[in-house]
């Protein structure tokens, strides 16, 4: 019986630490960088309080599991005719849980021919990558994908 209770206690302790540690680690892992900005503040600065609608027109390509968070390839394509009347004005890329959520803001013109942008970004932990595309008509379209990161890329 002693052995059984001992094992039970160990099991309980392990479960408790497993529950507690991820939270404390996460809390300790969020140092504020010089440009720290929250997602809400960044979105407000860009949209000016307008509504952002999820859309099929925005195609975000990112790996579901990224082994190295320091190099996560991201490709964004937006369906648009790219004429003088109707084109994609800007593409904004956000990493929702980084200290500074803003990754890049790309201002496009009809001279681009097609709305596409690709780069490699750093992700500190597993999180969603959010893309907001601004059209010349003043619409804000978005797409989202979660990326699992095995090794964080910041710090």
């Amino acid at each position, binding site marked *: 019986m002693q052995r059984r209770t001992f094992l039970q206690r160990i099991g309980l302790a392990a479960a408790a630490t497993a529950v507690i540690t991820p939270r404390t680690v996460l809390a300790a892992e969020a140092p504020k*960088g010089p440009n720290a900005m929250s997602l809400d503040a960044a979105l407000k600065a860009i949209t000016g309080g307008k509504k952002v609608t999820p859309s099929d027109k925005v195609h975000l390509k990112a790996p579901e599991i990224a082994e190295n968070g320091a190099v996560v390839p991201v490709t964004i394509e937006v369906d648009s005719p790219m004429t003088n009347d109707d084109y994609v004005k800007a593409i904004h890329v956000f990493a929702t849980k980084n200290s500074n959520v803003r*990754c890049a803001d790309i201002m496009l*013109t009809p001279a681009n021919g097609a709305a596409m942008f690709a*780069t490699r970004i750093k992700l500190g932990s597993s999180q969603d990558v959010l893309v907001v595309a601004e059209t010349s008509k003043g619409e804000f379209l978005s797409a989202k994908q979660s990326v699992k990161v095995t090794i964080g890329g910041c710090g």
Partner: protein
Amino acid sequence: MAERKSLIKFKPKKYKNGEIVKVNFMVMHPMETGMRKDKKTGKLVPADYISEVKFFFDDKPFTTMQVWESVSTNPVFTINFKVPGEGTLKVVYKTNTGEVQEKTKKVKPKG
């Protein structure tokens, strides 16, 4: 400041007038976030990242990027470009430390 290594590539390599090509712009840059600690001294490495990239065709800007520290080391920026004819493509980039550099490549459509 010494010139950084940078490169402009067109994909595909051979293109016609009016065709949409991919323009790759690569820079060798550390992209320090300002949050990393130096392992030897234990002090924070100051932030040093590319903050702005501008693409020009014959001195007319057609794409502007505002970039933050979340972009990877030695970044690659890919955009599309509709070739309007012969000319020069120029990329100018700035860092948060005030460094400004540029790179040019001639656009020569065939046919």
